[in-house]
């Protein structure tokens, strides 16, 4: 299996999408000769030409609206928001159009499209270029929301999103682009059944730690820390946020009796709050031996300075400490 970065894995997936369907095009800002602000589409223009790899003016509303119009007329568009923060300019086509047309028109149309975007903080890009806005889209019926965390699942999930007949918001955390690993470049799947499935990264019995996107990587590192070696930690990567695989988390919590959810986004009206709510309103409530915990980004815009940025985002050591606290709490 070839070794590659997440950025490259996404590019491989995009290539496969373009190969598998003539009506597929990619549109976005600086995705052509520039290769994308994060280099993800680098080389695709040379391979597929201007008809398929379409640089747009800086106009996010029409980039997304274009995808909706193309999707309902038999095409399979993939569009890019250079930083996912700019999706604020494309909320009408995504929320009022893409998400609703299938339902609103009584099932008469499907809207198979992908909106990809670079999300998250950690590069000092400050408040307007560092947001994790995935929670908003989970709140919108009709959308699916996917957040890969490494090269392999980015590849697999992008393909699954591609064959899904619904609009998918695909959020790529900036810090995963350069993560490297071997990737099994499988074929185009026949259906999108991979969406909506979380993954157990590591089995354990003392606590269930759930996360998604780049924060999963912090959790994995944290669990390897010396001070935690005595504990048996179950780690779950949600992968798809809408629909959310709460059922697997509920099963896990029934086993471990403890739940910690970690995310970069602030807590209020977020994925993490939802998961905790879904767990405690389920049969797992009885299994919990203590209050679940949510380790989330501070309720603050993202500062630019590095030492402040790390204050806002939960760090590995915060996760270690929280896991210790929770397990030792009731032993």
């Amino acid at each position: 299996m070839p070794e590659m970065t997440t950025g490259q894995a996404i590019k491989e997936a995009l290539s496969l999408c373009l190969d598998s369907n003539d009506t597929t095009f990619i549109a976005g800002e600086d995705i052509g000769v520039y290769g994308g602000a994060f280099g993800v589409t680098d080389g695709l223009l040379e391979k597929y030409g201007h008809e398929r790899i379409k640089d747009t003016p800086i106009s996010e509303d029409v980039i997304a609206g274009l995808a909706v119009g193309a999707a309902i007329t038999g095409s399979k568009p993939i569009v890019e928001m250079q930083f996912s923060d700019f999706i604020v300019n494309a909320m009408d086509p995504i929320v009022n159009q893409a998400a609703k047309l299938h339902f609103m028109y009584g099932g008469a149309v499907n809207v198979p499209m992908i909106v990809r975007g670079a999300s998250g903080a950690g590069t000092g890009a400050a408040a307007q270029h560092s947001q994790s806005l995935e929670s908003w889209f989970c709140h919108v019926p009709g959308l699916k929301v996917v957040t890969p965390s490494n090269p392999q699942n980015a590849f697999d999930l992008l393909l699954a999103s591609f064959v899904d007949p619904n609009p998918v918001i695909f959020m790529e955390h900036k810090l995963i682009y350069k993560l490297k690993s071997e990737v099994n470049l499988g074929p185009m799947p026949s259906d999108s059944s991979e969406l909506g499935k979380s993954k157990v990264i590591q089995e354990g019995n003392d606590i269930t730690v759930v996360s998604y996107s780049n924060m999963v990587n912090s959790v994995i590192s944290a669990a390897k820390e010396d001070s935690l070696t005595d504990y048996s930690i179950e780690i779950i990567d949600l992968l798809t946020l809408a629909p959310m695989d709460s059922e697997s988390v509920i099963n896990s919590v029934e086993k471990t009796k403890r739940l910690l959810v970690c995310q970069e986004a602030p807590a209020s009206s977020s994925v993490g709050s939802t998961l905790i709510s879904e767990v405690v309103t389920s049969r797992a409530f009885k299994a919990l031996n203590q209050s679940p915990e949510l380790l989330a980004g501070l309720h603050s815009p993202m500062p630019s300075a590095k030492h402040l940025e790390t204050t806002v985002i939960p760090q590995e050591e915060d996760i270690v400490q929280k896991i210790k606290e929770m397990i030792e709490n009731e032993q």
Partner: protein
Amino acid sequence: MSKENKLELYRMMLLIRLFEEALEEMFSRGLLHGTMHLSIGQEATATGACLALEKKDLITSTHRGHGHCLAKGADPYKMFAELLGREDGYCRGRGGSMHIADLSNGNLGANGIVAGSLTISVGAALSLKMQKIENIVLCFFGDGAVNEGSFHEALNLASLWDLPVLFVCENNQYGMSMASENAVAGGSITQRAESYGIKSVSIDGNDVEEVYETVSKCKEKIKSSGKPMFIESVTYRYRGHSKSDRNLYRTSDEINFWKEEKDPLKRFIGKLTEEKVEIDELKKVEVEVKNLIRESVKKALESPESPKTNLEEDSYA
């Protein structure tokens, strides 16, 4: 234009008028839930434009879309059923007045968001172009939509990418209560379109033949040049914006002037009579349309309610 053609234009305008009058009556009888936006007075634009298209040409429509929908070939029964929340409705009662789509006739759907369909029409046109389908997308929108950011982005891209879109601005002179002249800085909608390098023309939107001829010509030009075009179709709405409108922003003199001097149906009947079409022929059309409306309403009222399926499942394809 042949007489048959003209009678078809007449029939369609009348169908739209009577369809909406029937809705008004149903509304006043409390049969309809929700609001609606009537295009009474504007029938010539919808009719002339859609009848100039082929079935496979696509349209995108607006909150004031009953006329577009009918003119593009929709079944009034299914439309009434939709407004009544019945299973046979175009959207199975999920869409209502503002959200009727009729894909089989090339109607990509009405839209409750002002300017919401402009960027969609651009995407649809890109599909046609990429799939090498020789049709066009006709995008309807109002004068009020011209000031939304989406208008700007859509026209810019359609022009840059040479997409087969015919933008049709139905300038009924008001966006809800705001006179177009107070909303469009610079004063000219066509000049605005021209600034994107899009050829534009302003026409009498209450003259159904002028609309028909202009759209026919534009359609051919778009097909041959591959470039978008723009029509401003000047018209007037008689009814309030929606059901909550007290019409305080305009005078009844103004409304009456348009009703009496410029009504598209009256004018066209006058013209047909001048051209020696027999009163009987017009009468025949009228009877046919009235029957169609009456039967459609009746059937819709008797049709079964849309069942309470699992709406969460219905939200996804």
